[in-house]
């Protein structure tokens, strides 16, 4: 089982999500480094010394400079927004006819995974449930809750969606790499929130069919 490690990026959606992380991390860090350097240069170069006993300038504005440092950041954030909009639009477009459909219900403190026309798996924090998904097939996952707000979060898939009582929302998940991934509740829900885990086991489509057939006999 994958524990919390560097996210393994194990779904189609996670590839796009990881790309967004990469772009934003690079943008954020390069801007931060630029400004950090400016701060440190100013802090060292203009410290009071015997050779710099008094401020050398009382100038308090510079309109062209101020316009530049207003417009440039504006262009940067507009560019970042355009990028993030593009990524998210692709992410939110749901497949018309997902081959796997299941409902996830969060409750204090456990999960129920109900496959359309198939098994229903329930587990609590003492015996966390396992969701089985076929690799390379899109699963339409509909999330809701029967008591307080929870959140269905698989860190390796870089995604969470809140389970809100009285409301169902659907997202697509297309796992790519077989393996078992740890999932947990991502919205504080009281006493056993920390223990409200589950797992997602990604298997080959053939194995998934065998699992469905086996569950049908149970």
């Amino acid at each position, binding site marked *: 089982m994958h524990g919390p*490690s560097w996210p393994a990026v194990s779904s189609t959606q996670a590839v796009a*999500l990881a790309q967004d*992380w990469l772009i934003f991390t690079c943008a954020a860090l390069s801007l*931060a480094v630029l400004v950090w350097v400016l701060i440190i240069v100013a802090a060292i170069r203009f410290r009071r010394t015997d050779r710099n006993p008094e401020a050398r300038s009382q100038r*308090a504005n510079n309109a062209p400079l101020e316009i530049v440092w207003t417009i440039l950041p504006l262009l940067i*954030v507009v560019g970042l927004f355009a990028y993030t909009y593009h990524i998210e639009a692709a992410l939110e477009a749901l497949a018309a006819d997902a081959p796997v459909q299941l409902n996830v219900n969060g409750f204090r403190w456990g999960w129920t995974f109900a496959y359309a026309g198939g098994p229903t798996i329930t587990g609590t924090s003492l015996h966390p449930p396992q969701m089985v998904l076929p690799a390379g097939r899109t699963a339409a996952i509909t999330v809701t809750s029967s008591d*307080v707000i929870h*959140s269905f979060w698989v860190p390796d898939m870089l995604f969470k969606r809140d389970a809100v009582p009285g409301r169902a929302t659907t997202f697509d998940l297309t796992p790519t790499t077989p393996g078992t991934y740890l999932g947990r509740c991502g919205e504080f829900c009281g006493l056993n929130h920390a223990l409200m885990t589950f797992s997602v086991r990604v298997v080959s489509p053939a194995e998934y069919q065998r699992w469905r057939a086996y569950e049908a006999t149970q």
Partner: protein
Amino acid sequence: MIATAERHDILAWFTSTDHKRIGILYMGTSLLFLLVAGLLAMLIRTQLARPDATLLGPEAYNAVFTLHGTAMIFLVIAPFGFGLANYLIPLQIGAPDMAFPRLNATSFWVFLFGGLTVFAGAAANDGGAAAGWTAYAPLSEITISAGIGQDMWIIGVAMVSVASIAAAVNFVTTAFVLRAPGMTMWRMPIFTWEMIATSLLVFMAFPSLTATLLLLFVDRHFGGHAFDPTYGGSPILYQHLFWFFGHPEVYVMILPYFGVISEVIATFSGRPIFGYTGMVLSAFAIAGLSMGVWAHHMFTTGAVNDPFFSFVSFLIAVPTGIKFFNWIATMWGGSIRYTTAMWYALGFLMNFLLGGVTGVMVASPPVDFQARDSYFLVAHFHYTLGGGSFFALFAAIFYWWPKVYGWFLDERLGKIGFALTFFGFNLTFLPMFFMGIFGMSRRVFTYPNTGALPELNLIASCGAALILAGAAVFVANVIVSARRRVPAGDNPWHGYTLEWATTSPPPEHNFPQLPPIRSFRPLWNVEHPEAPQTP
């Protein structure tokens, strides 16, 4: 104003309507709350130092982090800013007191008892409030959180909310109508400007908080069903109402400190604040934009228009960037004196920057889908409120202490305290970005013993110990300095705003006489009569 003989006994502190006394009461009270909230954080870090620690069970842990967050946000960071504003606004604009001195005293006492109500709730025999500082419904509904502790939390926070609105009315009215002759709006110090922007946010945001708390109380006790989906209510509605307050609140907790940093950097660089007009306009731009970003706290609900709230959130980076560039340009060409206050201001710049750029990251919904409610988010907002607001708070203490008491805090102990706090802070919160990416949820009393999580948590807890040591050095500093009482004089730092024109501490009605006010640095004009009027 009725001139009355100033009382000097202990009773004076309970009956005073003098803005300076009320300011000191606000700041002193919030520092005491800070002590408690900080010790609660130490409990949290002790529990999380190891994956299997048993210092706090889940029940106690949830109550502890709820109280920690509630106290820091409602009872420490914002009220300290209000205390500073109480003390400084009349001094900075040349007024004898606040516009409504009695309302001012009322605000403080309602705030104090609100805070005490929240803390008293923690001692309720069926447990204190444990639904987080956000108290999301349905978790905070009576079916789930039945205890009286949750009710006391609601009542206490509502009292603080009402007190904040009254205080904001006072700040704005004072700055609008009580300015000394010559003190035009465009000559007010940046701190006073930032407090006007802060107060406008309080007007718009805090009524939403009060309404939310009232609805929650009605839900709990009178069958309101506002947030109960089985009767057509909506937990999403709670989040909208709460964050309509909650995000502007973030700026209520930072704008006053932007003001502090502007004053401190200008004074110790020996220069006027750079881009005065830009500084003022950016404060109002931040305030205005912050009213339109609340649902970026709700990206993962799948119930809001992500692109709109994402874009407005990104835009806030622009006015914030203007402030950063102006601060750097203020230092540029200066002759910077590294006092403790300046070190804290520098620490603020370094830390808050990381809080700011990670804020841009989580404003991108695809990043937020992983970061939300993880330790990445915990790291992000502690870099803004801890590394930002708190560093500015201590800059303010070291900068204005000599004005308030007439004697200095010890500079050497101050710098040792700064160094411990700065390294401790970064050691504590830098690892949390990685914990979040690795999948650690916030608000958990334990975490799996896998990957790098145990090591990262242990490092964070060691950092917290350093912060505690820094806090101890500060307390020692106050005690040592109070014994020595090294006299400060009227204007120890060579500040050019009006509060430095009166004695330290200032007399009851502040100014026996005022210097002529011809720019936003009146004392500079006094020193340089030959120079042109505007700096």
